[in-house]
């Protein structure tokens, strides 16, 4: 039984689905954020696996760009979570249902 690239793709699909489930069932903004990070990681794994399958380095470059965007997104998102927490003393997204500040 040899490892083929499709094994990695199925694993990435599984990790992505777990990330989607995390966003759907959790109400803690931080854990939802971690689930989004997991989904980005799953997509990166897909990029790198297909890069291996095709013998092209571009997939790894795309994975690096995704990492950069994820890093920018984490800094902004965590800053928003912290500033929301300073106003409301909660990181639960159900308590942020109204737009009025």
């Amino acid at each position, binding site marked *: 039984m040899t*490892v*083929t*690239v*499709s*094994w*990695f*793709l*199925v*694993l990435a*699909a*599984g*990790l*992505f*689905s*777990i990330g*989607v*489930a*995390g966003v*759907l*069932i*959790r*109400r*803690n903004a*931080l*854990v939802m*954020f*971690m*689930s989004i*990070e*997991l989904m980005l*990681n799953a997509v*990166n*794994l897909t990029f*790198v*696996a297909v890069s*291996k*399958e*095709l*013998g*092209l*380095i*571009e997939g*790894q*470059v795309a*994975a*690096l760009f995704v*990492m*950069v*965007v*994820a*890093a*920018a997104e*984490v*800094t902004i998102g*965590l*800053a928003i979570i912290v*500033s929301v927490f300073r106003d409301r003393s909660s990181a*639960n997204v*159900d308590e942020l249902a109204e737009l009025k*500040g």
Partner: protein
Amino acid sequence: MAETIVFIIFAAVALAGAVSMITASNPVYSAMGLLAAMFAIAVLYVMLDAHFVAAVQVIIYAGAVMTLFLFVIMLIGVDKPDAYGKQVPAQRVITGIVALGLFGSIVLAGRAAWITGSNAFGTANLNGTAEAVADELFGTWMIVFLATVMLLTIAALGTIALAYFRDVPEEEMVG
């Protein structure tokens, strides 16, 4: 054979870390689960000959991003009670069905497209060293690279602005 064993072990670690991340009631345990999943994914990158991406994964994700997450968890405190919040009836069941359906449709769509896994692993000649990645990154994708530089600068400025310009009454301002 050794590759199969390594893949199975680290795929299991990644899946277990991901599941523990979404089921743990304490956000610190969630962060630890995500950390385990990220390290396992880094090992899988090494299996896929993406050595530089694996190093970046450990340094950026497992290092910087997870430290930032843990720092924010520390800052805002761990709100233990009611970690799942109010739930729509049968929300977990529906979520499980949606996630399984998504997984199945991704796999089916992938098979129907062109990835069938016919190539034996490791037949393609690819070596993702820092040099190989840099040749591509600073050659063909230079403009995109500069755009990401701008993106990171703007993100840093936005974070500073969010932390610094607060909507507070004048007398509470310090300095």
